[in-house]
């Protein structure tokens, strides 16, 4: 299973499924990361975590621990 955490910088991927449950998952979905959406991995913070994504035309940052819950193609 490939997750968003494993996605290289500069790569665009399509979200397949969101794992986990509860508030964090809901928050991630509320911010626009839903099934089928394209996510571009912009960069990783200077200290290696969190990562910056471009989704639905804006910039979003998520921790790698949370990005691991997002399964991508």
């Amino acid at each position: 299973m490939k997750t968003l955490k494993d996605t290289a910088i500069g790569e665009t991927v399509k979200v397949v499924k969101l794992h986990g449950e509860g508030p964090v998952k809901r928050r991630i979905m509320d911010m626009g990361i839903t099934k089928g959406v394209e996510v571009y991995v912009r960069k990783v913070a200077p200290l290696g975590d969190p990562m910056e994504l471009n989704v639905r035309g804006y910039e979003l940052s998520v921790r790698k621990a949370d990005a691991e819950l997002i399964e991508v193609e």
Partner: protein
Amino acid sequence: MDIKIALAGNPNSGKTTLFNDLTGSQQYVGNWPGVTVEKKEGKLKGHKDVVIQDLPGIYSLSPYTLEEVVSRTYLVNEKPDAIINIVDGTNIERNLYLTTQLLELNIPTVIALNMIDLVRKNGDKVDAKALSEKLGVEVVELSALKGEGSAEVAEKAIKLAKEKNLGSRSAILDNDVEGVIQNIEAEIKGSVDDNLLRWNAIKLFERDSKAVEAINLPSDKKQKIETLIENCEKALDDDSESIITNQRYNYITGIVKDTVKKARAKGELSVSDKIDKIVTNRILGLPIFAVIMFLIYAIAMGGWTVSIGTAATDFTNDVIFGEWVPGLFDVILGALHVEEGTVLYGLIQDGIVAGVGAVIGFVPQMLVLFLLLSILEDVGYMSRVAFVMDRIFRQFGLSGKSFIPCLVATGCGVPGVMASRTIENERDRRMTVMTTTFMPCGAKLPIIGLIAGAIFGGSPWVAASAYFIGIASIVISGIILKKFKAFAGEPAPFVMELPAYHIPSVGGVLRATWERGWSFIKRAGSVIVISSIVIWFLSAFGSVNGTFGLVDNLFEDESIVTDEYVAKLADRMDISEDDVNPMDASLLASVGNAVSFVFKPLGFGSWKPTVATVTGLVAKEEVVGTFGVLYNYDEDAAGEELGDEGEGIWERVAADYTPIAAFAFMVFNLLCAPCFAAIGAIKREMNNRKWTWAAIGYMTLWAYVLAFIVYNVGGLIVGEVAFGVGSIIGIALVIGIIYLLVRKGYKPDESVKSLTAVNAAA
């Protein structure tokens, strides 16, 4: 009747700008009941009967964050007459997600399509008319920053409110789910407000705990609904919450495809992207961060020529409240024949003027600092600070944004505590407020200077150790506290928008600066002034040889101050007769003498350091000032400034304390309850009596424990203190701290875990 209009929208959508534009200066700022979320309302300019209610910036109406719950509760229970939904035109897709939820509330709604000037500048096209037709609600183009369109938005909202015009809203959900929702609607019809039928049906479908609780259906209906949901979940192979979210976004994607044309090709960088590419760059990110933080520190706190903040505060303290105001009051009191040395004169000059001065003195520096922070926030750098620092700070349970309060607190704890306002997560904010004043602030430096100079021959290691102890206290407290129930849980999820950089608006920045400064003056002012008066009273009054009054005056009367009395006082206070001064007879000295036993285990249990510690509550530099008085250091006679070499006082201090006791004294004073000004700021930020006392109590306890360990265990190690009960307790405390650090903390029940302490809002 008044018309109530709610202003709702995402963070960074320009909501505050629009609110200021609509209401002008007619604003009332408070807090939502029971929580520290700021509540703002105001009267619409030119309309005395229209109230605009600003809701917190939110992305959704989920039950998981305080801001969202506050907004939901307001919209559902207060039923505003209309909603102005502000939508960032440069970021329509995500902004419309909230819109789809607002539309379910069946309240007349107008969409204010903001930043339309930026949309045009980018060469993008948004077809407002088509958007309006598809959503079934009015859409007005707006540039809040330039003030274009805001009057039209307000007029439209008033018109809709008066007509109770809901528009003709389109179906958001697709057929399968729509069918299930309609079935749920049929089940709950009659149990809920008819207008909120759709809202409640969807919330029940999502198994939204707050809605389920509020509706309280009979169990057979609950069972029936649960079966409906489960069947739908099986059919679509997803959980119900995800189903709804997916459908909302699918609906939006469909609309956006037809109404928004982006000029920029996919993957092409905007100006903001290009800036960000450098600013949060893997290699340059940290150096740039360091430079920006240094500049803030230098301008607001430092002691250089660029340090406007320090200069302004010094001016206020030394000139305005050092000469002008006392001088003015001298003239006024003189004209009223209130003589120096009377009670009234003392109360006004030494109590009130000095007390107010202690508060106002912080204000210029705070304003400079808040100005800089507001600019950073407005530009969009603040969220990048969190982005860059998150990795480090979440190790000890704080957020990346906690860095700024800690940095600022090295200048002054008051703005440090207030800078925590930018941390959205309530738990992180409370933790930051509780620990940030551990940093040695500017006013604590004289204490460090005194101990280093008098006891340790001016060794720079003393100051270095003070900063080390401050930082270590924050880190250790963070780790220990987050294992307790009140702070437990995963660190707040860091799913954060990094808003596009933009040029800050002068008006908005100045306004935000002033609001923060004023809220401090207003709320904290009273606490500090009253406390200062109490301390003044205790230090000025006392019983001299059986006569109660102002000690300074009584000591001038030879008939009262007999040699016999002086000998007795010297004996009671355990000092030589030559050293007796008026303050020894004050109430404060008596109190200090009575409670000094508390500090015996810390090695400085005589009344002088006790009194110095208490006066430190007024302002930390007072600790040194009090030492100056108590050790009879006479500025005039010695002809040298206390700040100079101060050898007069140093020798006497050195004679009174062992190095380890002096160090314990310093540790205690650096870490214990901060000055009244900072306590006032803590009270303001906690907005809760219990949490304020918890914070102060924790700091004082931590200071006591640490000073105890320093004196007893440290003393044992360097051979100054003999082995005894104290050493055993000290070692036990060290073990206790280590246990608290490594123990398995409280784990919240996963099913009730939420992003913030939402229950407080219920």
